[in-house]
């Protein structure tokens, strides 16, 4: 058994070293970054229409910002179309921006604690902005005094 083809004894082979210890992976590998990347492109294309349309209506059409007031908002939000438009724009823009800032924090904040707390602040603010914004769109009352 311990012979080579020509019948000579094989030199002793030392026991292999124990396998190198790898850092224990605490989190399961997911495709989160791929989906985040894809979301930026898909939401971005939708936001081109939603946001540029919004800016055109609010800032340029019929005298622009000068005509905006409570009555103007009440008139627009009487229509489910504009409420849907604004809700979709709010959620997509906030998520798109949050993911963008997450990338910026990951790029520039170096200390683990700084990264963690900046991202916590970001996620809490995103949650508050989406909650408050949707609450206002869903519960808008044109007869409020």
């Amino acid at each position, binding site marked *: 058994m311990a012979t080579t083809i020509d019948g000579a004894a094989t030199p002793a082979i030392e026991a292999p070293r124990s396998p190198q210890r790898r850092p224990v992976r605490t989190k399961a590998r997911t495709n989160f970054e791929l989906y985040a990347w894809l979301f930026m*492109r898909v939401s*971005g*294309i939708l*936001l*081109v229409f939603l*946001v*540029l349309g919004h*800016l055109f209506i609010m*800032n*340029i059409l019929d*005298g*622009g*910002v*000068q005509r*905006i*007031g*409570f*009555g103007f*908002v*009440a008139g627009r939000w009487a229509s489910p179309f504009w409420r849907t438009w604004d809700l979709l724009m*709010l959620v997509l*823009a*906030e998520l798109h*921006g*949050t993911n*963008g*800032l997450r990338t*910026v924090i990951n790029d520039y904040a170096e200390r683990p604690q700084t990264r963690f707390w900046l991202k916590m602040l970001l996620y809490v*603010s995103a949650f508050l*902005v989406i909650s*408050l*914004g949707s*609450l*206002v769109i869903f*519960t*808008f*009352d044109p007869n*409020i*005094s």
Partner: protein
Amino acid sequence: MPKAPAGTLYRGREGMWSWVAHRITGVLIFFFLFAHVLDTALVRVSPSSYDTVIATYKNPVVNLLEVGLVAAVLFHALNGIRIVLIDFWASGPRFQRQMLYTEIVLWVILVVPGTFYMLKHTVETLFGSAS
């Protein structure tokens, strides 16, 4: 300076500077969005508080800032389309530079009349006889 490795268009020249501008405009727009959701939320408080805060948007100085905001959003939107084309169109990376110059031309074509209409009222109020 080390030479840029093959296969990236994000180091140096147009590829990098458009990336820088995309990042800066993106962060600016994000912070404006935060303020804008808060000011719009005042419609749920009272018509007068909403109208009071909206009056700041009609101030000449803030009006000028709005032009800057629209210009930033427009750049971010056009450059975003360019990024999508670079990532998904097979010839996108090859034409990224030409697409950037096309984008800048489009941006100027849209920003010039946009600025005119956005500042029309402010200029007329400050220097003319409009209400």
